[in-house]
């Protein structure tokens, strides 16, 4: 197992945002966590990447405990988080955004090579490398957020709602790229999505989170047919 959480509990003030969440994610696969708004998906990712301290429970990455590590150390170990809302640097160039992603790396040559690879995956970023990030369209910004995360040469990518606010055609393309990435770049992906059908169609394993607790898990192609999943969303 690449990433494992066990009995992870997170509290804001006195209220539990996550209670005893135990899940795992494997290398070279997409694991998805679906659930409605406020279910605790974003909190889960922020806890893994060290932005939030858990109240109890463990997080292990490649066998090492990371639940007390700083965000810097977690990035250094190989986890890269593409946050909700993307959190780009709006008034610096696309190129600079990408290079900030490689902040902790010192191997200039390898950085150069990764930059070229990202430009291959997303040619539009190469065309616009001198433009400011805020001048990109929503889809392009999402690609930039991806690219920036890949620049740290991660082993595990955490993605928070990459499809948000994007037109369906772009959503499809993003998911397509994601699938290619896991195979080509050898990274594991944890994908958090409100768009369950989309997420489950690209993932191999899925978890359903509700009110901070896991309520369902299984292979994605089974979950997608599960009436409980549909009910969880639409109340059908």
């Amino acid at each position, binding site marked *: 197992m690449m990433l494992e959480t066990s009995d992870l509990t997170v509290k804001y003030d006195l209220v539990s945002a996550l209670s005893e969440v135990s899940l795992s994610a494997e290398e070279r696969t997409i694991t998805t966590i679906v659930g*409605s708004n406020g279910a605790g998906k974003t909190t889960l990712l922020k806890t893994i990447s060290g932005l939030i301290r858990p109240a109890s429970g463990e997080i292990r990455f490649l066998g090492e405990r990371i639940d007390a590590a700083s965000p810097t150390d977690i990035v250094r170990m190989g986890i890269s988080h593409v946050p909700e809302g993307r959190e780009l640097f709006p008034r610096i160039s696309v190129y600079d955004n990408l290079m900030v992603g490689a902040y902790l790396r010192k191997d200039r040559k390898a950085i150069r090579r990764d930059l070229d690879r990202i430009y291959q995956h997303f040619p539009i970023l190469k065309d616009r490398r001198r433009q400011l990030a805020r001048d990109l369209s929503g889809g392009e910004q999402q690609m930039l957020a991806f690219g920036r995360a890949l620049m740290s040469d991660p082993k595990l990518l955490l993605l928070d709602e990459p499809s948000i606010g994007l037109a369906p055609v772009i959503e499809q393309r993003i998911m397509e790229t994601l699938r290619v990435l896991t195979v080509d770049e050898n990274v594991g992906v944890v994908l958090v999505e409100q768009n369950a059908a989309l997420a489950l169609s690209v993932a191999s394993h899925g978890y359903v989170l509700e009110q901070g607790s896991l309520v369902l898990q299984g292979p994605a192609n089974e979950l997608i047919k599960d009436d409980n999943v549909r009910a969880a*969303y639409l*109340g059908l």
Partner: protein
Amino acid sequence: MAILEVDNVAKRFGKLAAVKGISFEIPEGQIRGLIGPNGSGKTTMFHLISGFLKPTSGDVRFQGHSIKGKRPHQIAKRGLVRTFQLTSIYREMTVRENVAMGHHVHAGRRGARSRPSLERLPQFGTVDESTEWILDFMALSDDAETTARLLPAGMQRVLSIATALAVRPTLLMLDEPLAGLNPTEKISVAQKIASLRDHGITILLVEHDVRSVLSVCELITVIDFGEKIAEGTADEVTSNPAVIEAYLGKPARHDA
């Protein structure tokens, strides 16, 4: 008669069109749901109606009068009151003080500011009596002296509705009142909302979560990408293909 008429309202932020010409009407005494996935523009819509944002074009009429460009407190004084998505309370005040503060527009005058609409909330001569009634009605009496920030999230949500109620609205707009509550809390808040309607208050409820609005709302308006994509009863909306796609999404194509 429609208490609220939203007439082709649009809002642009620079290049981004957040709301692209939405129209709908809410008849008096209805509980209306406004739903849509994240980023669909529903919160923007909410700000546009309550005066926290000014529409780029279109008009908003409340009880027949345009309220476009009016400041939020002026709109609130007319009886259109809103809550916030993130629980908004006076954190350092007690529950009672929060609700009493909600009486601001009525305090210091004889009786409540009269509303040109049906007013079935009981009438009170003093803020204290009214506060007492609201605390009781919203089941907050036991915590009346608690500092608001110490309440659990669900109770804080109830408190923010209670404070809005103190303004004695004719139209109450609730922004995700059920999000983040546990099932028991959800049921009790939903019941409160229904009984508010029975007191003559029209309600517009914005929710991300479809399930929670279905049981409460009489009519539901669905928006996505800043446009209205459906309107109808719970059954009509949930069987509408456009709505299903907006919420569940389309699976990724495996060809590509």
